[in-house]
């Protein structure tokens, strides 16, 4: 169907980016603008005993200096948390602290100045005396007896406890198990590191009392809602939030941040436009971070390798405050994924969300699902080792068979569709798995440390049915809006509540709309990221834009077609049932007589002239739909990775990486492949190079790109991408999310490969990232050091 969906249309947004015309927030500049800089806490936990802003305020070019009390007195509310599981204890999170800092990077004071350089100087001139308080940084240690409290009113630093699954079946599985494998592991803290540092700009119109805020957000409408209802107090009708081009997000730009309040508040106070742009160091210590779990788990199985139960307990570090969606990630996006791609009756998981003196933790690419996949896929490899089985073979034995879909897991989700056996067979074929194993045996014979890692992973994408989200703790709904405005000339503007920050929606959503209406893609323009132009929207995360945002457009297109068809029949003086809407040609014509018809453009024009309308039909051709998904969609992947570990330097060298994914129907194969490739490299980063680490006293030790090692171009030799398609029955496009699958699968694929390589040395587990030092230490500890 259609001319565009399923084809690799070149991206329509690219010409501006490749010519340096990207419209990023940091590029917004007005005459008379003030530049905002923020004094950050160097302490992880401390009482502020004295602050002197006088020297800063007196500097030439400084327009104003504000403290936490100024924001409080000036009507700024605390940052709320938008997802609360039962009995969640929510610490107060002020825009700018007044008396106590809770993590390195906490906002202490704000400067507005004539230039960014003067603002930076003034920040340095603010004197603050701190009385250090005891700190806690460890996810599990936070709940130890006698651990320092991050917030005195929250006992044990436990923000919430949550559990899900069939505990009875789980206990039975372990009671009757022939074999049990256990693991304790850390899923390390990651720093998302979108290449564009966060930024905000604001302009206040005193005459109309309208505020415009530009922010690096993945979801401008929810930000407007939070600004209006909680933090800034300007009515939504007077508040316009624009997320123009945004340079990557990976989850970190979902959340409502203090600076989104600070900048418009300052703009109104000083009566001048204002702008703040984070330095990289500021981003690393204030952008919400990811992962950071400590987990104890065990897998039960029969002697023939049939998985029967999985029992998981996790301590999830939430940082010093609850970021906007923080409790969602280790609960409804983690425990729910613990069944993996496997048939297991007894899955049960519980999680403790703990508070520490670290940067808040929230969604980062995959968000909960990578943590589940890494855990399950490590356990499966341990099971294979225990049973002396091939890990791919054991996975295929336990995979949910395709005839079992839709498949109800013991942890709430109803998987939509899939063929995991074919997925793994395709990956094995593509990688020449048997050949890889033969080569491994040969390499081992030559004294090489060769490993092969294989995984099969699941994702829940396209959040979410609003009622389900509400029942799990969400304060908002997760539908999406899509508006199709057909102009009198037949040109089409598509307004989506989804937001593109690299995903290419201006192309893919145009492909969908063009095919649905049967018009040339050149006549379709996609508009996103502006509350002043789009009625509402929930934004982009959780690989939801095609599933939910795309489906909203399909619904609107159906309504446009229905009206055009009716109008066409009327103008052709035919009964409605005697005409057809030809989506190939973009034309309404009499059945069997293609010549007797009217083009889409003619009918659009007729809808606006309204000279001759059917009885009761309103003029115009403009439709808005709000699409609430019936369920999540469930992409799956099987990745195979081949590595060598150097026995001299202990460096890991990836020899091959094969990614086979099932993301349902594909709108634009080129863009989907790009998403998979980029996702894989982020997952490899977690496996090999990245860690957001803190000292015991809460100092962030990886606060710049010197210490936080994101992958470089030479980390992989290339990625071989392939796919199978099992369409999702849960949405009209048959699509599943494509944005996160690569990241979810890559971390365990690489970890399994490295540990397979080290198996002859007696090493069965190393915490990520698998740096040469960590590998060397593990080898030494196993008594096999050369």
């Amino acid at each position, binding site marked *: 169907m259609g001319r565009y969906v399923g084809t690799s249309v070149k991206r329509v947004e690219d010409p501006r980016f490749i010519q340096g*015309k990207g419209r990023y927030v940091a590029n917004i500049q007005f005459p008379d603008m003030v530049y905002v800089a923020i004094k950050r806490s160097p302490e992880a936990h401390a009482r502020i005993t004295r602050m002197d802003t006088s020297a800063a305020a007196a500097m030439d070019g400084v327009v104003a200096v504000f403290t936490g009390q100024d924001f409080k007195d000036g009507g700024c509310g605390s940052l709320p948390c938008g997802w609360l599981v039962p009995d969640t204890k929510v610490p107060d999170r002020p825009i700018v602290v007044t008396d106590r800092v809770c993590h390195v990077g906490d906002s202490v004071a704000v400067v507005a100045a004539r230039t960014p*350089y003067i603002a930076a100087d003034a920040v340095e001139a603010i004197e603050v005396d701190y009385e250090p308080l005891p700190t806690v940084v460890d996810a599990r240690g936070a709940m130890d007896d006698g651990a320092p409290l991050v917030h005195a009113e929250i006992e044990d630093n436990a923000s919430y406890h949550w559990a899900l699954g069939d505990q009875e079946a789980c206990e039975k599985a372990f009671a009757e198990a022939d074999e049990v494998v256990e693991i304790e592991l850390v899923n390390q803290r990651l720093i998302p590191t979108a290449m564009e540092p966060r930024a905000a700009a604001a302009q206040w119109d005193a005459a109309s009392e309208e505020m415009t805020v530009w922010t690096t957000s993945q979801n401008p409408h929810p930000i407007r809602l939070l600004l209006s209802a909680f933090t800034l107090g300007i009515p939504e009708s007077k508040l316009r939030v624009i997320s123009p081009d945004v*340079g990557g997000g990976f989850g970190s730009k979902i959340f409502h941040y203090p600076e989104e309040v600070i900048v418009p508040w300052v703009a109104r106070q000083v009566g001048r436009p204002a702008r703040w742009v984070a330095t*990289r160091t500021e981003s690393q210590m204030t952008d919400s971070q990811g992962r950071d779990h400590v987990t104890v788990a065990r897998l039960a199985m029969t002697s023939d390798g049939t998985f029967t139960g999985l029992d998981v307990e996790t301590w999830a570090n939430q940082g010093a405050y609850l970021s906007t969606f923080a409790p969602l990630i280790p609960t409804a996006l983690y425990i729910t994924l613990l069944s993996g791609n496997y048939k297991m009756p007894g899955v049960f998981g519980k999680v403790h969300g703990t508070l520490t003196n670290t940067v808040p933790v929230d969604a980062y690419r995959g968000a909960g699902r990578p943590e589940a996949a890494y855990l399950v896929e490590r356990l499966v490899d341990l099971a294979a080792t225990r049973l002396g089985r091939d890990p791919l073979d054991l996975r295929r034995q336990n995979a949910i068979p395709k005839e079992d879909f839709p498949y109800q897991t013991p942890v709430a989700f109803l998987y939509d569709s899939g063929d995991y056996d074919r997925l793994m067979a395709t990956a094995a074929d593509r990688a020449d798995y048997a050949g890889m194993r033969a080569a491994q045996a040969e390499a081992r014979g030559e004294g090489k440390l060769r490993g092969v890692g294989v995984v099969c992973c699941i994702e829940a994408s396209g959040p979410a049915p609003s009622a389900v989200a509400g029942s799990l703790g969400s304060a908002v709904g997760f539908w999406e809006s899509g508006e199709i405005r057909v102009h009198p000339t037949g040109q089409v503007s598509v307004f989506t509540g989804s937001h593109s920050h*690299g995903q290419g929606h201006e192309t893919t959503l145009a492909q969908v709309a063009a095919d649905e209406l049967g018009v040339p893609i050149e006549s379709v323009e996609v508009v996103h990221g502006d509350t002043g132009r789009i009625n509402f929207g929930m934004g982009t995360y959780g690989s939801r834009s095609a599933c939910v945002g795309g489906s909203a457009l399909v619904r609107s297109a159906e309504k446009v077609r229905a009206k055009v068809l009716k109008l066409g029949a009327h103008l052709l003086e035919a009964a409605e049932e005697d005409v057809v809407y030809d989506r190939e040609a973009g034309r309404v014509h009499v059945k069997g007589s293609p010549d007797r018809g009217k083009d889409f453009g003619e009918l659009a024009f007729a809808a606006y002239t309204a000279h001759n309308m059917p009885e009761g039909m309103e003029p115009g051709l403009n439709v808005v739909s709000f699409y609430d998904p019936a369920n999540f969609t469930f992409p799956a992947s099987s990745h195979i990775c081949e590595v060598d570990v150097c026995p001299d330097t202990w460096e890991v060298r990836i020899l091959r990486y094969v990614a086979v994914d099932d993301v349902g129907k594909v709108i634009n194969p080129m863009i989907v492949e790009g998403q998979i490739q*980029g996702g894989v490299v982020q997952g490899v980063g977690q496996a090999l190079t990245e860690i957001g680490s803190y000292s015991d006293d809460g100092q962030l030790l990886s606060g710049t790109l010197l210490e936080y090692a994101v992958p470089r171009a030479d980390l992989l030799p290339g990625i071989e991408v392939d796919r199978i398609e099992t369409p999702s029955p849960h949405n009209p496009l048959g699509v599943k999310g494509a944005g996160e699958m690569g990241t979810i699968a890559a971390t365990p694929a690489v970890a399994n490969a490295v540990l397979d390589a080290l198996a002859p040395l007696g090493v069965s587990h190393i915490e990520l990232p698998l740096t040469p030092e960590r590998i060397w230490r593990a080898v030494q500890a196993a008594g096999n050091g050369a």
Partner: protein
Amino acid sequence: MRHRVCLSVNGKAEEFDVEPRLLLCHLLRAYVGLTGTNIGCDTSQCGSCTVLMDGKAVKSCTVLAVQADGCEVTTIEGLAGADGLHPVQQSFWDHHGLQCGFCTPGMIMTAVEILDRNPDAGDAEVRHGLEGNICRCTGYENIVKSIVAAGAGGTS
């Protein structure tokens, strides 16, 4: 104390009085008004701000504006000619060499220099040449493909 800096930016003579500490990237963005040169870090790791200075790729966050006095600077805005996109720009578009676009100007300027040194640069040489540029979106796969193809005449 302020210093006079005279330089050519994309072929146009520019003259400014600047603080000695002003970085070239800030001169380009705030004084010249060319915001295509993005700033992604503060430790010269990411390469987003790469421009050509007298034909050499430099990270404009590690160059003081005063050091650029008398130099010819080319930014991403100056790359396309009267006859359209530069072959490297075209190749990035053709091969999906970008996603969010933020690192792209720096990647393209670095690529121009890589291919200037060796128009036949292969996969490994390009990956090595990109060591100073970080992309968080693409996994580098299509960036490498774009550059190799541009070098081979954009025919791949």
